[in-house]
């Protein structure tokens, strides 16, 4: 029980749990509608799930009020990072996140009736666009980190490589050489990801999250089931990084 108290006392942990519940509802709703095919028995459950999902979404929006200020603080801190690529990526990511949260706050005001005449669709599209930009920048950062680690691993491999292997490569055909090269690169990539769990988790999380704005903006056709599954997976991965802080990619 003490572990639950320590975990749930963090606001981010509760927000992630609510997010996981929200996307679990999306996934369950998609599964039910496929299984039931609109039959009377499941439509009541389906509408309850949809109502719960809407309620969880609105609740999460409420918890995110004031998040823009935090994101701007994050952007200010990332301006002091030594690496220029990381500095650029993280600052841009925080700024996009601040804009996403600002649009999200406006959407909350619209949904609760504080701003009744709000163009909900327009603001929703705007917020998903900023969310998408933030995710793309995060993925660029992940790709950069992977590239740096790949170069280091490649250099380490070349240092440790024995000379008699090289003539064998030269003797092979062009396509076979290319295939071998790709295989080696893939092996190296898998080794780099295996040796860096925080980077792997961050990459998986951003890749899963990417599906959500792509689907909402109509850029990629997928089903509510896939959106629910990806949202649930990324929420579970976030919860893992809260439970085990060493899994969080720094900075």
């Amino acid at each position, binding site marked *: *029980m*003490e572990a*639950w*108290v*320590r975990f*749930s*006392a*963090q*606001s*981010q942990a*509760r927000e992630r749990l*609510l997010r996981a519940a929200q996307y679990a509802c999306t996934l369950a709703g998609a599964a039910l509608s496929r299984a039931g095919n609109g039959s009377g028995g499941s439509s009541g459950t389906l*509408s*309850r799930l949809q*109502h*719960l999902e809407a*309620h*969880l979404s*609105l*609740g999460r929006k*409420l*918890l995110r009020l004031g998040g823009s*200020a*935090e994101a701007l*603080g994050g952007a200010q801190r990332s301006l002091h990072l030594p690496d220029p690529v990381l500095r650029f990526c993280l600052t841009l990511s925080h700024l996009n996140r601040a804009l996403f949260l600002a649009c999200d706050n406006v959407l909350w005001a619209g949904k*609760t*009736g*504080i701003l009744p005449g709000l163009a909900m669709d327009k603001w929703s599209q705007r917020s998903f666009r900023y969310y998408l930009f933030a995710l793309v920048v995060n993925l660029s950062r992940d790709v950069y980190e992977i590239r740096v680690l790949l170069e280091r691993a490649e250099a380490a491999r070349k240092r440790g490589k024995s000379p008699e292997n090289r003539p064998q490569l030269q003797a092979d055909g062009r396509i076979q050489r290319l295939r071998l090269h790709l295989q080696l690169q893939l092996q190296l990539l898998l080794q780099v990801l295996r040796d860096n769990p925080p980077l792997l988790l961050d990459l998986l999380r951003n890749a899963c999250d990417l599906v959500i704005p792509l689907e909402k903006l109509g850029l990629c056709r997928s089903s509510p089931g896939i959106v629910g599954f990806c949202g649930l997976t990324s929420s579970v991965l976030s919860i893992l990084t809260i439970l085990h*802080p060493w899994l969080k990619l720094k900075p």
Partner: protein
Amino acid sequence: MVGESPGDVSGYSAPWFSPSRCKTHHDARNHPGCRRMKSAFILSFMRATQYTCMLLSYLIENKADKKKLVMKLKQLESSMSSGRKMFRLGNMVHAFVAARRTAALPEMVPCLCLTASHLSRALYFVCDAVLWLRSVGLQPHIDRPKWHTWATKCYYCSLLMNLARDWYEISWRLEQAALEEKTKEKFFSQKDGEELNGVKSDGLHSFLHQLVQVLKRNPPLLLDLVKNLCDLSGPLDTLGIYKTSRGVIGFCGLLSSLVGILTLASPHLKLKQ
């Protein structure tokens, strides 16, 4: 027991969450202590907003041109209330853990009062979770008025236990102060009879004076007492024991929320268990 109103995280005395820098721990802003207090601060802030809306809507509801504003305030109030209910799902476990901790206290009266208070609060959170299930539509057949009454009774019981504990703290400090007073009088006074008679004649005055002194010297105790007394207004009205208005409940709720935020910002003002 300051900061122990329903929805607040129990028992953590970590500092105020600082957006830029953790002032107390003097290191990175996002370490676990600060993240935990952010949760308590968010709930307190939502509570303060809810009661501010209640108070403001009461103050302006009779004005003809403010109908739209009143409606928006009521919607904001209801949104804060449902958000708080959702955010504090799972707090019953917090309350049980706190009850287990206070059951090990050495002094009998605080041990009994605080343990009973935490257990009542745990039951309150259970009722609150049931009401949330109904409001969300997962269990539409739940008898809302019955569960609301039960939740209010549990909360009321928890507040009474808190007040009993506050009264215990005040009474032993009063006794200690009276003992110190007697010792001083015996030590300094060479004359007997007249001065002592003078003290006995304004008993109520002296008692109130001593009470004010005790509360002035113990700000955490004063804040806890004020918070618990303010929190009483809601359940007294709901249970029909002492009817007041939405304005009074809103004002008292806002005051108690501000006291809660103050004790989160300055942990030395929190009454220790």
